[in-house]
């Protein structure tokens, strides 16, 4: 057997990242080769620490460095409002707006029987368990696709009978997009969810 080639190994491992093809992986590997060793060391450490020290928050099911996570531990957030998202990254999107001061819940996907994903594969039970703690409203921010819509409807079906308000994140024309340039399905959604003035 020939000697394993470290460059080749690095390229192959990098190309396993989502959205990274072999050519991009090669670019990264050659770039790393040209940097001082500290750069690769820092990157390697960051990756190692990630899998070793990240855990899941037992309250909101987000990935976190501590349990409960810093958002769940924050006393200034509104316990009455829980925003449900499909993925941890979606939290960042909502946080960036600076408009939301409630709590979060990460579902870990959306209901899709075709892929064998039902409520038991998601964190639905954990969500329901949280609701007795003073929640008034659940804002469902799942994706605006067939599975995301069905998941929202399913949650509403379970949660509404508990006397809580269930809302859905509005979808429609992007802010900054002029109506004439908006795509068809965004306009259709916006029309469907138009509101009273």
């Amino acid at each position: 057997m020939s000697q394993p080639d470290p460059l080749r190994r690095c390229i192959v491992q990098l190309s396993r990242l989502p959205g990274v093809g072999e050519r991009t992986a090669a670019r990264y590997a050659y770039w790393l080769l040209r940097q001082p060793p500290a750069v690769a060391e820092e990157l390697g450490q960051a990756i190692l620490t990630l899998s070793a020290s990240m855990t899941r928050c037992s309250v909101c099911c987000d990935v976190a460095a501590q349990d409960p996570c810093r958002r769940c531990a924050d006393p200034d957030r509104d316990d009455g409002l829980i925003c449900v998202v499909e993925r941890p990254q979606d939290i960042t999107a909502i946080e960036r707006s600076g408009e939301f001061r409630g709590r979060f819940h990460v579902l870990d996907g959306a209901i899709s029987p075709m892929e064998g994903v039902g409520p038991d594969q998601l964190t639905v039970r954990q969500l329901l368990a949280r609701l007795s703690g003073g929640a008034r409203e659940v804002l469902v921010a799942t994706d605006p696709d067939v599975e995301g819509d069905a998941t929202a409807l399913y949650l509403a079906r379970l949660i509404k009978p508990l006397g809580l308000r269930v809302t859905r994140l509005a979808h429609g024309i992007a802010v900054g997009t002029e109506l004439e340039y908006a795509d068809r399905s965004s306009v259709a959604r916006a029309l469907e969810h138009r509101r009273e003035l």
Partner: protein
Amino acid sequence: MRLRGLTVTDWRNAARAEVDADARLVVLHGENAQGKTNLLEAVWLLATLRSFREGRASRLIREGAAEARITGELLGQDGPRRLEWRRQPDSRELRIDGQLIHQLGPWFAQLRAVLFCPEHTQIVRGDPEARRAFLDRAAFTARPAHLELVTDYGRVLKQKAALLRERRADPDQLATWDAELVRLGAKLAVRRQQVLDELEGPFAEAHGAIVGAGPAPRLELRGVGAAARDEAEVAGRFAELLARAAPEERRRAQPLCGPHRDDLLLHLEGRDARRFASQGQARALVLALKLAEVEAARRRGQRPLFLLDDLTSELDRGRMERLVRRLDTLPGQVWITTTDPAWLGPLPGEDTALVRVSGGVATRGPAPSRPSGGPLVYEPTSA
């Protein structure tokens, strides 16, 4: 609307072909297997991004080539535009006037087309699926957003089917998928009925124009979407039907009702054309349906292209002549492929492009001329 020029590169088995199509009527003629239908398919693909034949990428791209390319020079109400479609083994690129586009809305807004090919007699004589596909295709041509509705409804249906196959389907989840099915299904049914209402008059009229006087054929949608003109009413009806079918659906582990089971009935002389129409009657009915689509589009202010594949032995002489006269009155450009233009009978001499296709190469010949009162004369074209 007119497609003035069509260029295909490494498309199917053609290395390169250019069609000068600046005419109201474009007749692609030549022996079989010379590439006529490939060119018509290229036009259809520009309009719909779908093939009407084998659509696998490996078959679209000429063997040994890296990508297939189709370019159309369009002349519409907004002036000239250039549509470009490129297909690599696992990706696709669309450009309008050189600008890469990512959303399909603007693309579909450029070019609409209605297609007739011999296999479409299946719409009359085949399974209900062929008739639903016809209706959905017509609804898409009218309003491209219909495509998303059909896709979403189909996806919800598949999800529900998958859930029913699970050993103990969660009733709350089943109710959720049913609610989505009802919401999308009611919309789907209403849109289909709307298209049907738009087709009805033009269909009877076009049929009369082809076959001559006689009782007008009728169209009728059967199933949960029958006479669906009010979304809330259809939704109520559909939900009731689902509730009744629920035990049977669970037992058989498959969804049993919804607009995906509806059928379009064609009545001809008081009889069910699905069962009684002859091959000739079926052809005339399908041609009338397609002509009705073009006419309905005209009433909406659209001027789609009408593409007719292999118009050779479809109709007897008298009906063919009447059809060609009818084609000359349509609002948009007409493309025909045929082995022999003589089959078509007298062609309008003005604004007609006779394009000979041989070995994948297209050559436009002189327009047909007709000495006064004499037969139509085709100038021989040398490739």
